[in-house]
Structure formats: structure tokens, C-alpha cells
């Protein structure tokens, strides 16, 4: 500005205009990583599944972040969660010329390396709406993703086991997965079983279906086969079948634990049918990627630490605190 003030006369005015234009161009260049247009930022959230149950929280989080930040968020998802199907969805987001893409990563990075590279070549910011590898917190400078935002699933399984041990569980623990093939659920199950076994508690995996009736009957019969079962864990958020099996078997002493808090879990924790649930605050898994992408696109900001959204435990002591937010679909 001081330089501008010192320029006078006609030639000076011309010079002033040139300098203003140059300054404007310079400012535009300086904001190169930022949005170079007036169009709203377009972010695609490539989910793992339809926005139902657990994934409904992610979708809601991303939508609300979009509203708060004034960016357009589109939630898309594969009909069946397979690597090719999800990569196809990412390619669709690239083709739609998204400014940023958040992916509900469900498998190893190698599956995404190519498509992430293509997104970067197209100038698209791309991050992971899933936890970093277990035990890591500081962002790896060579990470293919700009950021990672999620709950440490291995830690979640371990936390469940540790809480059960703290509750004095003796006997067998059955860890069931209604969504075989879902890496998150499987990691939780494996980590829990490993931790329990490491502490001398017998633990077993049980594969179930999503149908609550079939879940109930399978678990009921498992309890008949193994009457020493002291606790059962649902590694997915669907808990109906577990509650029915507990009632059907008359095993009031059976400790039920689950993941995520939905209306059924809330009621069951309140009245004591379910001991606790692991909350990974998945609303943040939807919300934070949109914030991180937007700020990266607008300001060039980048994550230093991975953002862990969980795990945390919700039990009878804490359930009322989160109840209102649960009913509104935020937790």
C-alpha cells in the first residue's frame, strides 16, 4: 500500500491499476489451493453402506457439517460393500468433479492407492472417514489420505474385553458378528476375543445374519449349548435379536454388550438388559471429514494428528447424559 500511495499522475494511475491487477492476481495465486471459484464447494462422502443405523449417523454428520460450513455434501454408497463397488463410487465422485472426497475406508489402503492417486491428479482433496491403523496417532507424512477420522476398532474390542474383565466376568464370552465380512466388526471381535483369551477367559466367535428373528434363535441355542456363557457381545449396532434371546432363555444374568447406541440400546441400558455399549461417536466420523476437507480446500490446512472419535463407553451411569442426543440421532 505504501508503494501504491507513492505513485501519482496519469502514468501513475495506469501504474496503480496495473499494480492493483497484479496484486489481485497475486492474491488469487496465493489462494491456489483454495476454492478458485464462487461455486459452493462440492464434497462427496463415499459411505460404506446405505445411510441406515450406524451409517445413518455418518450421513447425518456429513450433512450437518455441510449445512454449517455452506458446502454441498453428497452421500453416496455402494449397494454391496465390496472393494470394486466402493472404488466405483469414488470414481463416480471424481467424474462428478468433486472438490473433496471423504471415504468410509473399510479395508487396507492398498485397495485405494490407485483411485486416490487419480483423485489427487484431478486436484481433488481426499481423506479417510475411518480410523488410522491401531496404535498410530501422528499423521504419517506419506499417508495417501489427507486425514483419518474414526474410532480405533482394535482398541474398541480391547476396551469391551477390559470392561467385562473389570465386571468380573467368569466363564465363556460369545462375540457375534451379524455382518460377516465387515472388517470393522471383525476387528472388534478379534481384538475382544484376543484380549479375553489373554486374560484366561474363554471367548468364541459366532457368525449371525441381520434378521433379528434368526439372530435370536441362533444366540438362544448357543446359550443352550454353552450354558456357561456369561456375556454376549454384538459387534454391530443391531441388538434386537440379542435382547430377545436373553429374554427367551431366561438368562437375566447374561451380560449383553454392543456397539453404537441406537434407540433399542438406549432403552436396554436404561433398564439393565444391556450392560454397556461402545460409542465411537460416529456422528463425528461424518462431520469431521467435511470440516477437514473444507478447510483444506479453502485454507490449505492439514491434519497433524489423526482424529480419533472413539472408543468410549456408555453404560447405565452415563446413558442419560447422551440420551437426548441419541434420540436426535447425533450419538
Amino acid at each position: 500500500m505504501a508503494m501504491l500511495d507513492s505513485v501519482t499522475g496519469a502514468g501513475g494511475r495506469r501504474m496503480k491499476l496495473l499494480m492493483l491487477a497484479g496484486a489481485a492476481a497475486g492474491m488469487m495465486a496465493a489462494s491456489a489451493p483454495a476454492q478458485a471459484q464462487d461455486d459452493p464447494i462440492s464434497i462427496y462422502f463415499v459411505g460404506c453402506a446405505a445411510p441406515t443405523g450406524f451409517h445413518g449417523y455418518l450421513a447425518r454428520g456429513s450433512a450437518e457439517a455441510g449445512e454449517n460450513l455452506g458446502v454441498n455434501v453428497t452421500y453416496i454408497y455402494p449397494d454391496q460393500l465390496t472393494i470394486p463397488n466402493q472404488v466405483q463410487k469414488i470414481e463416480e465422485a471424481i467424474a462428478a468433479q468433486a472438490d473433496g472426497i471423504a471415504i468410509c475406508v473399510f479395508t487396507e489402503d492398498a485397495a485405494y492407492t490407485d483411485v486416490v492417486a487419480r483423485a489427487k491428479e484431478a486436484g481433488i482433496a481426499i481423506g479417510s472417514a475411518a480410523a488410522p491403523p491401531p496404535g498410530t496417532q501422528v499423521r504419517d507424512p506419506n499417508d495417501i489420505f489427507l486425514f483419518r477420522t474414526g474410532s480405533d476398532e482394535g482398541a474398541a474390542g480391547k476396551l469391551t474385553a477390559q470392561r467385562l474383565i473389570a465386571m468380573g466376568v467368569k466363564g465363556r464370552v460369545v462375540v457375534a458378528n451379524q455382518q460377516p465380512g465387515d472388517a470393522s466388526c471383525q476387528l472388534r471381535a478379534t481384538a475382544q476375543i484376543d484380549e479375553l483369551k489373554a486374560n484366561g477367559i474363554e471367548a468364541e466367535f459366532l457368525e449371525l445374519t441381520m434378521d433379528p428373528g434368526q439372530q435370536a434363535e441362533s444366540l438362544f441355542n448357543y446359550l443352550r449349548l454353552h450354558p456357561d456363557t456369561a456375556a454376549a457381545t454384538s459387534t454391530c449396532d443391531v441388538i434386537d435379536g440379542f435382547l430377545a434371546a436373553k429374554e427367551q432363555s431366561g438368562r437375566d444374568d447374561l451380560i449383553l454388550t454392543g456397539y453404537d447406541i441406537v434407540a433399542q440400546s438406549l432403552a436396554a441400558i436404561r433398564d439393565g438388559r444391556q450392560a454397556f455399549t461402545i460409542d465411537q461417536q460416529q456422528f463425528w466420523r461424518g462431520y469431521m471429514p467435511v470440516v477437514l476437507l473444507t478447510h483444506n480446500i479453502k485454507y490449505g490446512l492439514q491434519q497433524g494428528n489423526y482424529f480419533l472419535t472413539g472408543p468410549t463407553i456408555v453404560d447405565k451411569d452415563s446413558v442419560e447424559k447422551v440420551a437426548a442426543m441419541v434420540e436426535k440421532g447425533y450419538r
Partner: protein
Amino acid sequence: MAQGLDDASAGSGPSRGAIWGEAFRRFMLRPESTALAAVLILFVVFTALSPQLFPTKLTYISIMAVAAELGIASIGVTLLMIGGHFDLSIGAVLGLTSYVAVVLMRDFGISPIIAAPTAVVVGAALGFINGILVVRFRIHSFVVTLGTMLIWRGVLIALTGGFPMTVDIPPLFKDVMAGPLIFGFRMSMVWFLGIGLVGTFLLTRTRFGNWVQAAGQNPQAARNLGVPVDRVTVILFMIASALAAVTGVIQVARFSSVDALRGEGMELQAVAVTVIGGTLLSGGYGSVIGTVLGAITFGMIQVGLVLAGAPGHFFKTLTGAIVVGAVILNTDVARRLARSRPLAGFRRNSAAADAAILGEAMPGRDGVDPTTAESGEAYREDKQ
């Protein structure tokens, strides 16, 4: 058999063994026979694997609970498949109509006595849409219902926002729909068997049943014979979706909830149950009783694998393998039997054989006795 043939050549009636053999052969030709065989085989296998727990009342209750909920929806699929069509949307219909029932009860305070039938009517309406799309645009039902499956599921996701919904269910309604009232067996079993009986009657004892089979075997020929194939098709889609809704209502009553994924995957389980039950994918041939047995087979697999202590990671694999085995048993045995010659020299579709079998099974009934000269005459006539 040789004896029977010799006797026949000698002019006397066939031997008792030949008649029983023919009776057995004829029974095995029925679509549901191999499903019954599958039930028996699995019963023996799981009893051997879990002798203490499997052959017990609690197990039967569990099997019937699984079979009932899946079986009711499968009966609709069976009728539709016999009529020559598929319905991939029944799982989504189940979820959407469950949602309707929950919302009517929870948000509008409507009695379940009204809400439940309303949900079934909504299911029938969704089936009507499927049927109309199929007959109006002549698009294969597989494609139409694949599309409507996605639509209904999408609508359900949008309406629920993706979140489970709970509802307080009056205990009486819960008991009537799914309560363990029949010596511990759930009421859903009663609905299942009742619907199975109605379905069997509809298929085998009514003109509509004939139309269904005719339409499934050769729709053009059926049309030429005056069968209202399009109307039959639409009605079948309505029945399939309405029965999916009945399953939905039962699950709402039992679990006091609905979630956006309710019913997902059930469409394929229903197809598996139907095929295990002896119904042909190509249409025109099948049995509701077979589907009832198929559903029991499926329930037996689900419960039996747990009680047998099968490795937890292989449930789906083992279930699939057993289903494939059951279908192979069904189709392969059926094919071989269809090629088999009637025993004791009877002709196919022989009235004399019917009389002989009936007389052997119930001697003295209707005065039919294969050893009398009369039946021997009939037998000889039959052979000519």
C-alpha cells in the same frame, strides 16, 4: 417287483411289495417329497451331532420360530414362482410395511388391530404395483422387482432417516402375533401353518390354483385356454407382498421395532426355501407344502449348526453348502424319478394303481382290495 410283474402276467393282482413300491415312487414324484427327505436327513445328522440338545422341544420351538417368519414370506414367493415370476422386492416390502405398522401405532396412536391389517394392505398395494409393471410393460419380473426393491428400500431409508424406531406393543397383540402360547411354540408358527394350508388349498383345490400352474407352465397356451394370465399375475404379486407384510407385522410385534435394513436378504432366503421345497425356478410346478418343509429345513440348518458347535466363521458357508445339497437332492432325485418306470407294470397316471395303492394302504376302504378279482381286472385293463 419281479414277483408283481409275474403275477401280473399271470392275470392276478400285483404283489403287496410292488404296490407299496409304486406308492413310494409316486410319493417321491411329488415336489415336496425331497424336502421332506431333506428334513429327515438333517434331523438325523444334527441329532447325531448334538444328541443331547437337538432332538428336544426347545430346538423344535426355535426351528419353527425361524421357519415361520421366513416361511410365511416364502409361501407368497412360491405361489408367484409357480406362476412363472420372481419377486426380489419382498424383503424391502417387509421393511417398508413394518415401518407403516410402527408409525401408525407410535405416531398416530392407532390400535395394532387396525395398524397391522393396514400394513398388510399397503403390502398388497406394493405388490399390485409390481404386478401392473410386469403385465403392462411386459418386463421380466426379475428386473421389475429388482428396481422396486431398490425403490422401497430407498423410501424406507428416507422415511426412517436410517435410524431404528421402537414402539410399545400391547402384550395381547404381541402374544397373538408371535407369543409363545402353543406349548412354548410361537404363535407365528400357527400363522405359518395356517397360511400354508390356505396356500395349499388355493393351489390344489381351486380354479385359481389351476390358473396359476397353467400360467407358469405356458402363459400363451393358458391365455388361449381362457386363463386371465395378467390378472392372475397381478394377484400373485399382491399375495407375495401381502405375505411379506404379514412377516413384517409379526417381527414388529416380536421385537417392538423396525430398522431400515429389516428384511434385507430375505428375498434370497425365500427363493432358497422355495427351491428346497421342490418348486421349479422355471415356474409351473411346485408345492406350498414343500415350501413349508423347505422353511423348516432352513430353520433346522440355522439352529442345528449352532447346536452342533459348527465353527462360528463358517455358518454362512455351511448354510449355503447345505442349501445347495438340498437343492441337488431335490432336483437330481426328482429328475431320476421322473424318468423311472412305474412299478409292477402300472401305467403312468393309472387309476388302477390309485385304487390298488388306496386299497393296500386302507384295506376294505371303498371296497377296494388289490387282491380281489375286480381290482385284478382293473389292473389288467390298465396294462393293456
